[in-house]
């Protein structure tokens, strides 16, 4: 069974598109981990919730862009409340407890989604239909738009961190939480804000992913797992690394899907994770520490 060049090309673009969506999720996760050492087990479920909120918004307004905005804001606020109530008390305790707490939250969110919106998948209509003609190939416009949007959001995050007024607060807190507090930076607030940003980005991914894969309750675990893998392969706390790793992992999976079924293609990313942990545990895209 020969694999045509077109298929490889299409899978490459697919890999990049999926990679950017994943990068949106993973950068939130790695940001949260970098600043508060919290491994947010429920991160994928925030993606899922964002997708549902987006789907509901589209169903009532018909506007994709509004849905994207509403989902991001609603889930960001939700994330802030969640962090302030359940995760703040756990700061300074055994990190295991945070994993467990976010795991518990993940269960609740998943079941809540089923209860609230029913077990069937929601569809999100893409805002741009039609295909983009690339030589003799057709490629959906929407997918390209998704990749661009995701890149734009991540780019905005980067600029905010680098040059924004509060970007300094976030970067200082990430590097040395205690010293940042000693400089008058309200660290607990920064933590909540960063969690909210991560949640908002996750929600946005959920909406962007909607037209591609549908919105169901199970995508939560899927995204969480993939995001974890990306964050580890890219280097925990390393923003640039997680973006590169997202694309890398997604490309691997896309190519693997040419040979095995999509369900099995997932194993490729798992293998990548394991190999990274064994040979370059600080991350594939991180310079080896001296």
């Amino acid at each position: 069974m020969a694999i045509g060049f077109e298929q490889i090309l299409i899978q490459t673009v697919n890999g990049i598109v999926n990679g950017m969506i994943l990068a949106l999720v993973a950068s939130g996760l790695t940001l949260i981990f970098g600043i508060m050492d919290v491994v947010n087990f429920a991160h994928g479920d925030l993606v899922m919730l964002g997708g549902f909120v987006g789907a509901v918004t589209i169903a009532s307004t018909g506007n994709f862009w509004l849905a994207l905005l509403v989902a991001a804001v609603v889930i960001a606020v939700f994330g802030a409340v969640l962090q302030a109530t359940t995760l703040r008390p756990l700061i300074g305790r055994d990190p295991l407890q945070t994993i467990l707490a976010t795991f518990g939250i993940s269960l609740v969110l998943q079941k809540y989604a089923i209860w609230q919106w029913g077990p069937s998948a929601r569809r999100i209509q893409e805002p741009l239909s039609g295909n983009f003609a690339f030589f003799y190939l057709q490629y959906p416009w929407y997918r390209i738009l998704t990749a661009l949007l995701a890149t734009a959001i991540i780019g905005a995050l980067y600029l905010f961190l680098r040059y924004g007024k509060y970007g300094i607060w976030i970067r200082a807190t990430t590097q040395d939480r205690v010293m940042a507090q000693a400089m008058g930076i309200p660290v607990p607030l920064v933590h909540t804000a960063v969690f909210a940003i991560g949640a908002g980005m996750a929600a946005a991914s959920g909406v962007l992913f909607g037209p591609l894969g549908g919105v169901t309750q199970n995508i939560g675990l899927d995204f969480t797992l993939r995001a974890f893998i990306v964050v580890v392969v890219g280097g925990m706390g390393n923003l640039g690394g997680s973006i590169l790793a997202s694309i890398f992992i997604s490309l691997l999976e896309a190519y693997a899907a040419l040979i095995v079924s999509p369900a099995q293609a997932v194993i490729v990313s798992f293998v990548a994770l394991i190999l990274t942990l064994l040979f370059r545990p600080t991350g594939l895209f991180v310079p080896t520490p001296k």
Partner: protein
Amino acid sequence: MLALDNVHTYYGKSHILHGVSIEVQPGEVVGLLGRNGVGKSTTLKTVMGVVRPSEGGVVFEGRQIGGMAPHHLAHLGIAWVPEDRRIFRLLTVMENLRTGLERPGVTEAKRKELLDKVYVSFPVLAERRAQAGGTLSGGEQQMLAIARAMMLEPKIILLDEPTEGLMPRMVGQISQIIRTLHEEGVAILLVEQNVPLTLEASSRVYIMEKGVVRHHAPAADLRANHAIIHQYLGI
């Protein structure tokens, strides 16, 4: 202005401070001497809210601050220059300074004014303002740490071993900086291993041993009589 009253602090199960009482008046430079590990740094950390006292009170300008979070204390006017400087290595010199400038009530004009003042006092920081903090030398980092604390416009600075690991020439500079701060009316609680510098800069000195204050005297007395220094510090 600042008073610790019978403060006990633990690190986990280790009982580090066994009832420390120290006072600093407005504008005073007070020295805190003692061997390694007697709890000098822990005393400063307790004041700054980095560790909580389990017993005893810390009062600043009439207000109980024991257990308050560090960022509130920074806004009240207490600045901390820790033992290992703790420069934000990945932030530039200017960004390091700016961490202290985004406080409520600070206008853009004020920020500029404070920054300019610091650049004049520390020309080397002005030179390196766009460089990452981690690329500075030890002495430069120390200056940055002090300059950063000054951005808080503090009423008191908690200085922890500023001359540690510095070349003699730099020690002189630190001495000068302390003098300038004193002239501007900033109080300083100075923890040091360098006895001569401490005796010269401070008006009063506390000597600690095993988590308690063992001796307390005006610096002048100790300058005249070295026996006590010998007894507690073995120098």
